């Protein structure tokens, strides 16, 4: 159904709805950005101004000066998130291939098992994990956080990658086998390159989930120098004496930029990855 078939009235309604959706989606984001460049006294103005009259960089500058030490949090986030992506991918891809292509006895049970891990509330697993890490001296370490992240990025990655591998025609693999390739060569030289869009989508998801996660890094680290951005924000902005909204919004912008950027760049793969599972049936 194209626009041409709609009456004028319907077109007007559609237009209004689109405007409403745009305001609904973007007004909070605009407010976040505009507060981050408003001087502190203006933030407490009553009535609040919609447009920052004297924009300032002071909140962003203070992010590095103050106890927030945002560059440390940022670096920790980058290290843990990218490492998780690499680790998850390295473990999930072979597993997804096995579940997709090979026939073996426990295949169905393992598939269901992997998916059901998605259901587990993280906070329940956090309690024994915290005590275990305490014993193994894994608290306040990158390895500890990366492993913890992998616990919830792995099942989803396997599920997504499996869907993408399913869509690679078996005949390609079979003819390669007939031509003499070993299974390993088939996986690395044929299937892997063909599923690059799916891999990109999975990587973005893993990165997103790791970057945004609050619970695990918050409880598995107590040294501020090892915290990632989300718990770093919690640490920095709930002080006793006053609420630094400007600084909090500036930090929010910093936390959001990498993910939004990554997302905008690869949104096609991102969306395809999301929807693939739904349409499989």
């Amino acid at each position, binding site marked *: 159904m194209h626009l041409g078939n709609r009456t004028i009235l319907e077109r007007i309604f559609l237009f209004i709805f689109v405007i409403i959706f745009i305001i609904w989606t973007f007004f909070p984001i605009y407010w976040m950005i505009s507060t981050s460049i408003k001087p502190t006294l203006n933030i407490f103005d009553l009535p609040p101004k919609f447009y920052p009259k004297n924009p300032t960089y002071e909140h962003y500058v203070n992010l590095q000066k103050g106890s927030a030490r945002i560059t440390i949090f940022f670096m920790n986030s980058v290290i843990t998130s990218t490492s998780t992506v690499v680790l998850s991918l390295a473990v999930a891809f072979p597993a997804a291939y096995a579940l997709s292509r090979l026939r073996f006895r426990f295949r169905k049970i393992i598939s269901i098992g992997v998916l059901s891990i998605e259901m587990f509330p993280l906070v329940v697993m956090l309690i024994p994990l915290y005590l275990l890490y305490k014993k193994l001296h894994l608290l306040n370490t990158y390895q500890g956080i990366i492993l913890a992240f992998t616990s919830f990025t792995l099942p989803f990655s396997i599920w997504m990658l499996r869907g993408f591998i399913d869509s690679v025609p078996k005949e390609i693999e079979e003819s390669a086998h007939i031509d003499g390739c070993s299974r390993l060569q088939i996986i690395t030289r044929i299937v892997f390159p063909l599923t690059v869009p799916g891999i990109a989508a999975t990587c973005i998801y893993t990165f997103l989930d790791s970057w945004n996660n609050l619970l695990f890094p918050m409880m598995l680290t*107590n040294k*501020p120098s090892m915290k990632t951005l989300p718990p770093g924000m919690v640490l920095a902005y709930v002080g006793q*004496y006053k609420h630094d909204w400007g600084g909090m919004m500036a930090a929010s912008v910093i936390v959001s930029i990498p993910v939004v950027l990554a997302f905008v760049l690869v949104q096609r793969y991102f969306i395809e990855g999301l929807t693939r599972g739904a349409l499989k049936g």
Partner: protein
Amino acid sequence: MKKNMLLGVLVIFLVSLSLYAGGTQEPGVTTIRLLNWFSAEDSTRGPVLDVIAHFENENPQIKVDVIDVDFSEHLNQAIIMNNAGDPPDVAAYEGPGAVTLALMGSLASTDDLFSSEFQNDLFKNSYDLTLVKGKHYAIPWAPGPIGFFYQRDIMKRVGLDPKNPPNTIYDFTNAAAKARKQLPEDYVIFQYDTTARVFTFDFTYPFMRAFGAMPIVGDKVDFTSPEIKTYCEWVRSSLENKYFLPGKKMGQFRPLAAQDRLVFGFDGSYLRGIVQSINDKITTEQFNNTWGVAPIPGDKNGKHYSYGGDTGLVVFNSSTHKAAAAKLIQYLVNSDYSLRNFSIFQGWQPATKSALERMPEFNKDPIMVAFIQTVTETVTPLPYRSDYGDIVLPFVKGVQEIITTKRTIDSVLSDVQRQVDAAIKQ
């Protein structure tokens, strides 16, 4: 391709391992770790780091590693770090923190770490608040009783006499009503903390006492007495009449004071320092002229109560540098440099009697004098016990329920009592 990936993972693991290994230690230098919230707060960060830097200059073999923590979380963090086997050497605490940590067996007694001369110099009623089973476990740094601040200009404007601030809680409520009738909506009548923290109970305890309520007496815990009910009714009606903003921490009312939109404050002597850090156009003289200090409005007999709000420092048992830790504590609490550049600057009361004698500046500050002369003596000790958190948290959550729902106060209080009884039994 898979091989390259595995290699990449290995490299990242090794790199991160080495990053965690951290920097090298210089030989002969003792590093002690200090857990505190002052280095995390904007208004106190500069001064406290400056004092610590001076300490390091005077003691070149000691380096202080400052660990920030949010005030609301300082006790939880100390407990978590202690449990992770990685506690700091020194930690700042507020209120019941020292006793809680001491009961967990995690603190070193200060009786053995400090000279008797220093210990005798501390104000006894503050120092004795840290007694557990006959031994002291913390050094008070800043006794911070909560006093009653009244804005003289606004009082005049609404027809109240600034020379006669309300004396009992009932006078106070009438004054609040009078002010509310005449002031526009953006004025907040008084500062009141209704968050759900252990600190909230401590802060509001003087008000409970003003209504004659004593919910925790020794082993008996009763949150269903008629006096407690009266107190809860007072909180509920105060909010309904829009005297304060609900769910805000005590500190979140300070920007209002800086904007002259607050009529009555309940805060410590350090309020001026904080207000000035929010609005640097307010001079000390202006502040002292605008705000008067009196004890918190008391009960029907005129007896006043206050919350000690002591901030202090503790040494952990597992610290291997207790002597260095004690040196740091003594410097922070009693050195001239610290007193001048941190305590006086913030408007804190000193912890030692000799400080009052050595530094006449303390007596020049009218707010400080008013606190020392009229507020300090109204401090009543809080009924700390090992399960303090488990007992008071249900109650402050109950107060939140009372001011945010339409449930009857009786039903909320009986729920609270049941929870508290269950917590005690466990």
